[in-house]
C-alpha cells in the first residue's frame, strides 16, 4: 500500500511537471525511458531468479498448486470476455494487454507506455492498482462468498507480496504456498504476455 502511494506520487509529479513547465525536447526523448526499461527488465529478472520463496514453494508442489495460476488467468480472461461483450471502450487487444498486468501495475504500465502507447499505460496503471486495492479491501468478502481460492486469483501477481497478508488471514496459512506460487508465475507471465500482444 505504501509503495503504491509512492509510485502514484511520482506519476502525479510527472503530470504536474509536464503540465506546468515547458520542458526541453531532450527530456521527453523516448530513448532514455526505453533504456531505463531495459535496465529494469534485467533487474526484475534478477529479483525473480534470486527469490528464495520460489524454491521453497517448488518443494511443496502438487498438481493442485499448478492449477491456481491457471484459475487466476482463466478468471481474468473470462472477465475480459464479459467486459468486451457489453462495452467497447477498449479493443480486445487493449483489454487483454491491460488485464495481463495481473495487478503488477508498475511493470505493466511502463511496458505498455513504451510498447503500446501512453494512454494504454495510464489505463493499465489505474486498472491494476484498482485490482490490488480492491483485493486488499474486499478479501474477507471474496473468501466468504467465493471460497478460499478467490482472493488469490483476484490478487493475481500481487498474491506473493502485497495481498499475501490478507490472503493468509482470511483463507488460512495453508493457502500461503498457493498464493506465493501464483504470484511468482503471474509475475513472470506479465512481460511475456504483454510483449506477445505488443
Amino acid at each position: 500500500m505504501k509503495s503504491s502511494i509512492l509510485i502514484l506520487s511520482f506519476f502525479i509529479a510527472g503530470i504536474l511537471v509536464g503540465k506546468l513547465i515547458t520542458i526541453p525536447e531532450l527530456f521527453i526523448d523516448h530513448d532514455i525511458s526505453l533504456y531505463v526499461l531495459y535496465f529494469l527488465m534485467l533487474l526484475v529478472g534478477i529479483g525473480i531468479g534470486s527469490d528464495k520463496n520460489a524454491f521453497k514453494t517448488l518443494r511443496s508442489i502438487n498438481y493442485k498448486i499448478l492449477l491456481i495460476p491457471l484459475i487466476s488467468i482463466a478468471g481474468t480472461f473470462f472477465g475480459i470476455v464479459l467486459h468486451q461483450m457489453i462495452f467497447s471502450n477498449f479493443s480486445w487487444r487493449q483489454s487483454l494487454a491491460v488485464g495481463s498486468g495481473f495487478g503488477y501495475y508498475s511493470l505493466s504500465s511502463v511496458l505498455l507506455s513504451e510498447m503500446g502507447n501512453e494512454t494504454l499505460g495510464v489505463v493499465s496503471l489505474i486498472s491494476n492498482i484498482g485490482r490490488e486495492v480492491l483485493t486488499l479491501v474486499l478479501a474477507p468478502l471474496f473468501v466468504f462468498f467465493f471460497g478460499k481460492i478467490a482472493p488469490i486469483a483476484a490478487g493475481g501477481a500481487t498474491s506473493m507480496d502485497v495481498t499475501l497478508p490478507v490472503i493468509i488471514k482470511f483463507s488460512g496459512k495453508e493457502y500461503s504456498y498457493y498464493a506465493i506460487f501464483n504470484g511468482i508465475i503471474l509475475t513472470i507471465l506479465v512481460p511475456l504476455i504483454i510483449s506477445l500482444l505488443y
Partner: protein
Amino acid sequence: MIIVLILFFIGFSLGIIFKTNDKLIRISNTLVNGSICLLLFFLGLAVGINEDIMNSLPTLGLQSILLTLFILIGTLIISYIAYKILFKSNEK
C-alpha cells in the same frame, strides 16, 4: 520487443546464479524501485504534456476501473467453481 524478454531471462539466470549474494540482490531491489519511480515519472510527464490524454483522464479512469471490476468478477466466478470441485473436499 524481444529485447525485453531476452534481458528478463538474462536477469533471471543471473538471479539464480547470484542467489546467495545478499548484497547484490539488495542493490538490485533498490534499483528496481528507483527505475520504476523514474519510469512512472516519465509516464506522468508524457501524460502531462499531452492535452488529449489530460482531457480524457476522468473518463479513462472510470473505464479502467470498470474493466477491473469485470476482471475481478471473472476471477471470482472461476475460483468459486474451482474451489467447489477441487479444493473443498480436502478440508476436514
